[in-house]
């Protein structure tokens, strides 16, 4: 077996073996004097002279020389280059990243325990120079321990890990691993990917390219796919009845796997109490729906859940939480032209009246001005091709907009705009323009990134191309950062423009909202378009009934918090008031007031409550968090294919990066450390030295005894 030395220069020290030899020879040169009673007989004995340079204590010399040689060899750090340990060292010290899937699907059977065992095994097999990182991922990824060779830290970090309620997304985790592996200076890299390899977590465009030479070791734990039922979707349609919201919950239950039909009981809970129980028959690999009896929504932040009565192995997807608050309609004040009367806003009114949740409360006024009292309860003012008197009305409207109100200006034949409010508009409008060719103009550009048109981005979500525009006014946009064009006609003139004024928004529609100047009102897209316009200009944010585990909310972001239905929390925090958040598992932590961002990570499934410290009698604010149902699909993907897609080839023209001097050095050092032959050599050397001490003592004692009595 070939022997190598990590520090061969130390082998020069083998010259020290000469020392004991010289000592043995020179010591003998200086002959011992033996006192003897008489040389009478010795004088007479014939003898032949012999050289003094003889080594007599061969055993001592051998022990000493061997001890010196072993100590020198130990300092040279020897190692076997062809041993099993050397093979274990492979390419040298490794940078190992253990990427652990902790999505909630890992809670099936004993997958999580097996995952921890697999990670533990990796850490225990680390070489002395190896470094390892522990990263976990679900929807997001996080590093628990970064690049350490201390296996105790790694193992103890492993003990603190818990399953999350997040879904699987390989992208963030692999990106994190890629970063760690790219930053390392160790010659060998290894990624140990431990998880159930759900197909749902793999999009295929993760864009992860691990450094060349990275060994990817998959530990797939999800070979069996159990039968899984899930509360796939809960819809909570509302109706306004007598001013109160009436909610009719409906749930869709899915079933993956199985061979026979299965009857499942579904429970509706409100405020932790069971309200209703329904049965649904689920076919194999199918779904079923259940509609509960409606209930009245009486108070804010009503907590509810739809859950299966008998949970299966994957429990988190067997329940769906929601938080509901009574809806508040957007009050819209429509100012019609006094001359045309209410007919001019017919299409507008009807469009706003048709709403599932009675989202809009419309008040129409023909002519006349507006006062502060009129605008107090109003969210949006629509000036529908009319004239707005100057004076008090203008002042009231300006302050209304600047304080956050919405203003939608519809320009038709009769529009008269007071000059003192000219700066509210994004530009100056012109006289009506006719589309001469008789077929009219069309909308040629819409900003689909803008919230107004965002919902029309996809196919079959709204067709504006059918609408023809015969007349419109042109809007000469002012050069302002607060103004922008949202839609244009095919001739390039402005169709819809926006201007931000103070806290409020002003939208200008350069044609009418009836069937005179265009036929948009007769198009199917008219209704959602009007809804979008009014919702946007009102500034109202739609709240969601539930978040998905793993989402992160900036508690200081008023918009984000409003989306969560927690707008008042953001306001309180901005006002330096304290709030405390209680997680579903019962832990609490304060929400830091002041300027942010301060992120609240919604990690757990259930209902997060936010309270004012010390105000126990106040009803707490709540936000529901559900698991991502994509995770409920436990179908595994092809592990080999996944691994192959992660490993990359060496860049052309670039040699594999293993051959650096430093890398080779590290590789040798790793081999040496794994074998640690120097310890054994030193041990043997010490044993030999101890033996030498015993032998030399014995020899000198015998010699001393002969000499000591002589002459005494």
């Amino acid at each position, binding site marked *: 077996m070939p022997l190598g030395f990590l520090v061969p220069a130390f082998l020069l020290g083998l010259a020290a073996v000469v020392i004991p030899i010289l000592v043995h020879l020179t010591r003998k040169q200086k002959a011992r*004097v033996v*006192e003897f009673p008489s040389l009478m007989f010795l004088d007479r004995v014939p003898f032949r002279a012999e050289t003094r340079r003889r080594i*007599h204590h061969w055993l001592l010399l051998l022990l000493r020389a061997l001890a010196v040689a072993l100590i020198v060899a130990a300092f040279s750090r020897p190692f076997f280059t062809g041993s099993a340990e050397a093979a274990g060292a492979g390419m040298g010290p490794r940078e190992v990243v253990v990427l652990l899937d902790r999505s909630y699907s890992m809670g099936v059977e004993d997958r999580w325990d097996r995952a921890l065992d697999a990670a533990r095994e990796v850490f225990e097999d680390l070489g002395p120079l190896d470094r390892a990182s522990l990263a976990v991922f679900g929807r997001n990824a996080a590093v628990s321990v970064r690049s350490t060779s201390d296996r105790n830290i790694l193992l103890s970090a492993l003990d603190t890990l818990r399953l999350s309620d997040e879904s699987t997304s390989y992208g963030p985790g692999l990106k994190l691993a890629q970063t760690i592996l790219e930053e390392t200076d160790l010659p060998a890299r290894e990624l140990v990917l431990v998880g159930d390899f759900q197909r749902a977590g793999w999009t295929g465009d993760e864009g992860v390219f691990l450094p060349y030479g990275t060994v990817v070791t998959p530990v797939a734990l999800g070979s069996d796919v159990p039968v899984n039922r899930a509360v796939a979707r809960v819809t909570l349609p509302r109706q306004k009845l007598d001013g109160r919201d009436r909610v009719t919950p409906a749930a869709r239950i899915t079933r993956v796997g199985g061979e026979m039909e299965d009857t499942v009981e579904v429970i509706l809970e409100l405020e932790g109490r069971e309200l209703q129980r329904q049965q649904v028959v689920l076919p194999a690999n199918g779904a079923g729906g259940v509609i509960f009896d409606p209930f009245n929504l009486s108070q804010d932040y009503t907590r509810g859940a739809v859950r299966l009565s008998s949970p299966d192995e994957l429990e988190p997807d067997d329940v769906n939480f929601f938080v509901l608050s009574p809806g508040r309609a957007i009050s819209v004040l429509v100012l019609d032209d006094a001359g045309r009367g209410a007919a001019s806003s017919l299409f507008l009114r009807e469009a706003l009246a048709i709403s599932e949740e009675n989202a809009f409360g419309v008040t129409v006024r023909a002519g006349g001005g507006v006062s502060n009292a009129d605008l107090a309860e109003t969210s949006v003012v629509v000036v529908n091709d009319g004239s707005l008197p100057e004076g008090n009305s203008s002042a009231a409207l300006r302050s209304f907009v600047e304080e956050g109100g919405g203003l939608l200006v519809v320009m038709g034949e009769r529009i008269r705009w007071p000059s003192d409010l000219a700066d509210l508009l994004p530009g100056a409008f012109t006289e009506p323009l006719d589309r001469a060719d008789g077929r009219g103009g069309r909308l040629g550009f819409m900003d689909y990134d803008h919230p107004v048109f965002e919902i029309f981005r996809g196919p079959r979500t709204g067709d504006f191309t059918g609408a023809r525009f015969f007349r419109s006014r042109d809007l000469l946009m002012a050069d302002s950062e607060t103004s922008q064009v949202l839609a244009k006609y095919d001739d390039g003139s402005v169709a819809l423009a926006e201007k931000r004024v103070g806290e409020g928004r002003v939208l200008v529609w350069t044609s009418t909202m009836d069937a005179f100047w265009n036929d948009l009102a007769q198009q199917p897209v008219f209704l959602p378009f009007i809804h979008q316009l009014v919702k946007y200009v009102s500034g109202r944010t739609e709240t969601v009934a539930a978040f998905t585990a793993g989402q992160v909310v900036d508690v200081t972001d008023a918009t984000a918090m409003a989306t969560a239905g927690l707008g008042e929390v953001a306001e309180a925090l901005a006002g330096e008031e304290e709030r405390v958040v209680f997680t579903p598992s019962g832990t609490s932590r304060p929400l830091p007031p002041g300027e942010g961002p301060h992120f609240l990570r919604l990690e757990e499934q259930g209902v997060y409550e936010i309270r004012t410290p010390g105000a126990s009698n106040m009803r707490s604010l709540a936000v529901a968090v559900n698991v991502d149902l994509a995770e409920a699909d436990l179908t595994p993907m092809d592990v080999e294919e996944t691994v192959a897609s992660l490993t990359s080839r060496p860049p052309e023209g670039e040699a594999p990066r293993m051959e650096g001097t430093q890398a080779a050095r590290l590789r040798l050092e790793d081999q040496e450390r794994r074998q640690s032959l120097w310890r054994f050599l030193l041990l043997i050397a010490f044993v030999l030295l101890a033996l030498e001490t015993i032998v030399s003592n014995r020899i000198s004692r015998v010699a001393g005894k002969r000499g000591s*009595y002589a002459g*005494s």
Partner: protein
Amino acid sequence: MAANSSGVSSGAQLLLPEVLARIDNLELLARKVVEGFLNGIHRSIYLGLSVDFAEHRPYMPGDDIRRIDWRLYGRTDRHYIKLFEAETNANFVVLLDVSRSMSYGSHSVTKLDYARYLAACLTYFSRQQRDRVGLITFDEDVVDYIPPSARNLDLCLHTLHRAEAGRPGELYNPLLKAIESLRRKGILVLISDFYEDTENVVEAVRLLQSPGHDVIVFHLLDPDELEFPFDGPSNFRDMETREELPLVPGKLREGYKELLSSHTAELQERFTASQVDYTVLDTSKPLDQALFHLLLHREKRSRAR
């Protein structure tokens, strides 16, 4: 016990209890086998100058006519004279070599130590027999001389105790001096390592014999001198002449041992021929064995007489 009762501790400590104990045992044995040598061991204590008849022999011209047994003449009409086994109150003198070579010892007891013990025991023994005891130590000259006397046991023991080996040794001259002062016949015990030529030794011992003394010779040798177990080249230094000799002992061992044994064999032969008791003593061997040897030997001699 004379030594203990005298209160002279310096000499008494030489008579080591264990040695004396064994000698006491030997004393019981000696009463039966060496009556001639241990003259008057019991009877002389009670009967005074008693004479033990040994045998008759025909009168020869020159014999003292006072020793003719007239009763036997009356019966046989022939002249016979009576011979007696021993005489009472003999002189017992130890001649101890204290030359520097006697200070050699490969173990806890040097040759001089051993000689001291031996001399002390013999002196004590002799005093028990009512002998007059004396001591002469010598190296190249006489060092101490204690004339034989019934009162000199303590002085002898004390002198033995402080005897030191200092100077080179010689046999003939000091013994010649010593014998001049020992007119009365007695028992002389010569203790030495005899590092001299055989002829010189024999000649010196003859000096002692010439006045009619009964001479006993103890040749003391250390185990190292007998076996020569040295190993490794060394400079051997003569303890008396300080001369050094570089040697490889392993190579010389056999030759040395042959020379030594031929030396002792020759001494044995010459001494035996001249009726001198000669015993080689190994200083590592127990002292009582030497005494036992001696007593046996004396018994033999007394019978032969």
